[in-house]
């Protein structure tokens, strides 16, 4: 079992919070695999975007420990902190509106 931290937030203006989850990290499981695990087994309210699962659509961007990555192409690790892209308007949790880039980088702890 590993512990991962996800930044949950109900929408723009709402109070963000970091929530920790225990997940079984299978061999080379991706960040997206971890999000699926949490959604299917722990909390169905987790919001995140995915489509192709093969690095093509560029829709599954999140920040892992502060760095923007494709969740379907990135290997998960114990202790990782997953948040939404910080330079776009937030929809909810890890989903952002890619048509609405924020003018200046908001100072926050999206990780």
């Amino acid at each position: 079992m590993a512990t991962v931290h996800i930044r949950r937030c109900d929408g723009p203006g709402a109070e963000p919070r970091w929530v920790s989850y225990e997940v079984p990290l299978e061999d080379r499981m991706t960040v997206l695999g971890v999000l699926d695990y949490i959604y299917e087994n722990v909390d169905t309210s987790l919001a995140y975007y995915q489509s192709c699962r093969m690095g093509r659509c560029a829709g599954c961007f999140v920040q892992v420990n502060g760095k923007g990555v494709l969740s379907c192409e990135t290997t998960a690790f114990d202790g990782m902190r997953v948040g939404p892209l910080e330079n776009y308007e937030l929809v909810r949790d890890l989903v952002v509106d890619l048509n609405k880039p924020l003018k200046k980088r908001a100072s926050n702890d999206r990780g």
Partner: protein
Amino acid sequence: MVTDVLVVGSEGAGARAAISVCEADPRARVTLTTKGRFTKSGATLTAGTDIDVDSTSVIELFGLEGDRRDTKDTFLEDIVVEGRYVNNQKLVEVLVENAPRVVKEVADWGMKVMGVARAAGHRYPRGILSTGVEVMKGLRNKVRQFGDRVTVMEDTLVTDLVVDDAGHVSGATALDLRTGEPVVFVSKVVLLATGGGLRVYPWTSGPEELTGDGHGMAYRIGTRFTDMEFVQFLTCTLEAPPSKVRSVNPFQLYGGWLLNREGQRFMARWDPVRMEQSTRDNLAIGIMSEILEGRGWTDDKGGYVLISMKHLPDQIIDDSPAIQAWFKKDFIESVKGKAVKCFPACHFYCGGIVKNERCETNIPGLLAAGEVCGGVHGANRLSGNAVTEILVDGAISGVTAAELVANRDTPRLGKSHYEGLVEKILAPFNRKEGPSPIQLRKRIQKLAGYKVGVVRDADLLRQAIAELQDIKAEAAAVAVYNSQKVYNREWVEALQVENMALTLEMIARSALVRQESRGTHYRRDFPKSDNSNWLKNTFLIKNEEGDMVVTTAPSVITKVRPKEED
């Protein structure tokens, strides 16, 4: 929301159709919807891509190395041979005729062309090489030129078609995922471009969104379907890394052994000479038969066998350009000297909604374009012909839509036309108890993998149909357990499960009727093709009593017939 043409599905077929409407009628307004994001959803993006045109056009329009011996008729012939003679040849004529123009257009709009290739089944080099991402780049550039005449609505899950008193499709209902509010569209025409229903299966090369929604909503209002039994599978797909599917398996090409639970190289049973180098069909049948006959492994998906690299010296893996090109270093290292799971994955729907040469369906006001349609590919699709089809369909259906728009006033809908459909959207969210949509989705996928997959027989299909009746009853009672309104995945799944079940039932019932094997459809109780009785297509519809019924009719043959020995 009022619009002239509502397009459901924003990718290859949908985006191309929007362009075509705008070009054909300078006043028409289009709303382009996707349950995901524009150019970030659907199968088009993930395509390889080869895009077929006849080889003479490869030279004349693209200046690439084609072969002038090829004609549109030769191209048609190859399509029909691959489709095992049950293609609708009138539709194939439309395809080969329009292909060069529409493919060239997308290139002119910004799709990068990287060369030409000759894929299996083609006598001449016809595959214009590019990528799905490039196709969508070209289409997006062009869509943008029409400014606010095309409204793109993302995160909009269309749930049902709205029909007026005259039986004319006049709009649709949807859930806006960003707000959690239902939306009612009023439109003169609805154009379905929702792609195949690949996610009905436990493993697929295709993306998340493809849950057969277009199939489900069209079926509910009485749309006709054809050839639903013909589903294309990739042979020995890998999970690399977990939760991710690979559409190619170079390990199989470069010496991996396929093993069953008894440790046997089971392909000896199916093709003792070529073994793992056998044809795609044989490999798929071999793998799935091992699973069904109890010699593979079963799991909560569709089961698997192993592909073993244990006997392969590392150097062979290191020296294989294909393996190196397709996989990341850490994956390659992790499989050296090991055996990993291997299984068939759903790749393409050859069948779908019946369309005519203008992309009209049997329902007035409803057009269909792209992979959601059937008819062109017959029992199997030639590589590169899917992207060609979506571009041709998009171009043609847009012109038809523009004509319909010019001849119809904006429909007047009353609450009675859509009230029930809106209620159907809200019901699972408001329900506090009921089956879980996630569990139901998994049950459907597992059933699809084991009983309506690569290997079929009457027993398996009957069992699947019976179980689907229970599943449909449960789907009507699903509950969403979390109460978030915005971007609620569980709610999305709750609205998808009925469509998944209906789509799978269409495949199972059509497969049960076709008592022979042909192309992608393999019946182990009827392992041979039967040209004397089965140069036919299946047609499926909901009858007056609400039952799903399948009939057959002779295939439309205009040019190519099977030779005696076929």
